[in-house]
């Protein structure tokens, strides 16, 4: 691994957990959205993580990325530029993602059936008077958010530990 290889791994986790938190925020904000540009109610999204590389050297992972290893496809309805930006604008290294780290494989729309409520006065009501609402449970979303926060905190303290290690190896020359 290169000089900051270990920090890249933890940084990839921070990115991935942040995407997860943003998806949760999007779900909670759109819990009552009955119309979307695609038609129909908002569909709940969730992220899929995948482990990347796995102990390979920097050169190896760079070659892999240059040969077009796919970084996952992104689901519709989600802010494509937001997620795509994480993949492309990786500051430290040219390779996307760190070997041994984690990446967002995709943001997937839940295909679950929408919640139907009877409200004939609603502008989005169907012929039978039912309005389709997204089936989003705020408790599920909050638990997911707590998990993302906990993982984010753990990986942030891992970065602090790694920084400490690198500083103490600089001490060798003093």
């Amino acid at each position, binding site marked *: *691994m290169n000089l900051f*290889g*270990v920090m890249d*791994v*933890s940084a*990839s*986790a921070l990115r*991935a*957990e942040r995407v*997860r938190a943003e998806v949760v925020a999007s779900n909670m904000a759109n819990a009552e959205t009955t119309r979307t540009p695609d038609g129909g109610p908002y569909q709940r999204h969730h992220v*899929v*993580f*995948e*482990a990347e590389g*796995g*102990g390979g050297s920097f050169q190896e992972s760079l070659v892999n990325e240059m040969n077009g290893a796919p970084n996952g496809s992104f689901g519709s309805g989600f802010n494509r530029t937001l997620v795509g930006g994480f993949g492309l604008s990786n500051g430290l290294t040219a390779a996307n993602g760190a070997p*041994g*780290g*984690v990446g967002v494989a995709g943001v997937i729309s839940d295909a679950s059936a929408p919640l139907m409520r009877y409200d004939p006065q609603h502008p989005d009501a169907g012929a039978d008077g039912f309005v389709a609402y997204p089936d989003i449970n705020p408790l599920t979303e909050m638990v997911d958010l707590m*998990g*993302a926060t*906990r*993982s984010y905190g*753990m*990986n942030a*303290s*891992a970065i602090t*530990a*790694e920084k*400490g*290690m690198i500083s*103490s*190896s600089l*001490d*060798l020359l*003093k």
Partner: protein
Amino acid sequence: MQTTTAMSDALGQYLDLTSRQMQLTASNMANVDTPGYKTQGFDFEQEFARQLNDGAGAAGLESVQVSAQDIDGLVARPDGNNVSMDREGLQLAKSQLQFKLGVQLLKHEFAGVMSAIHMDAK
């Protein structure tokens, strides 16, 4: 006339193994939410003893990458992931302290040799 001691060689290998342990721990922590991921690690004491007995001196600049194996005895959650945050947190703290220990001891070794070299210097 050599300025390196067997102790500094051993400490160098100790630091290599500790930083490898750190890489694996960081990897495990990053993948705590990845479905199907199994915790990776290696037996530190065994590897260290093996490296001390093997080459009486490191193989060169790049340390031999210790292969990571799946750790046994961990409970897997429903999505197939078996990373335990507690274990990884403990491992992180241990590795950090081990690294600092290795660096301090190595500094001490080098300082001893340097003071011997400079003993009569005016």
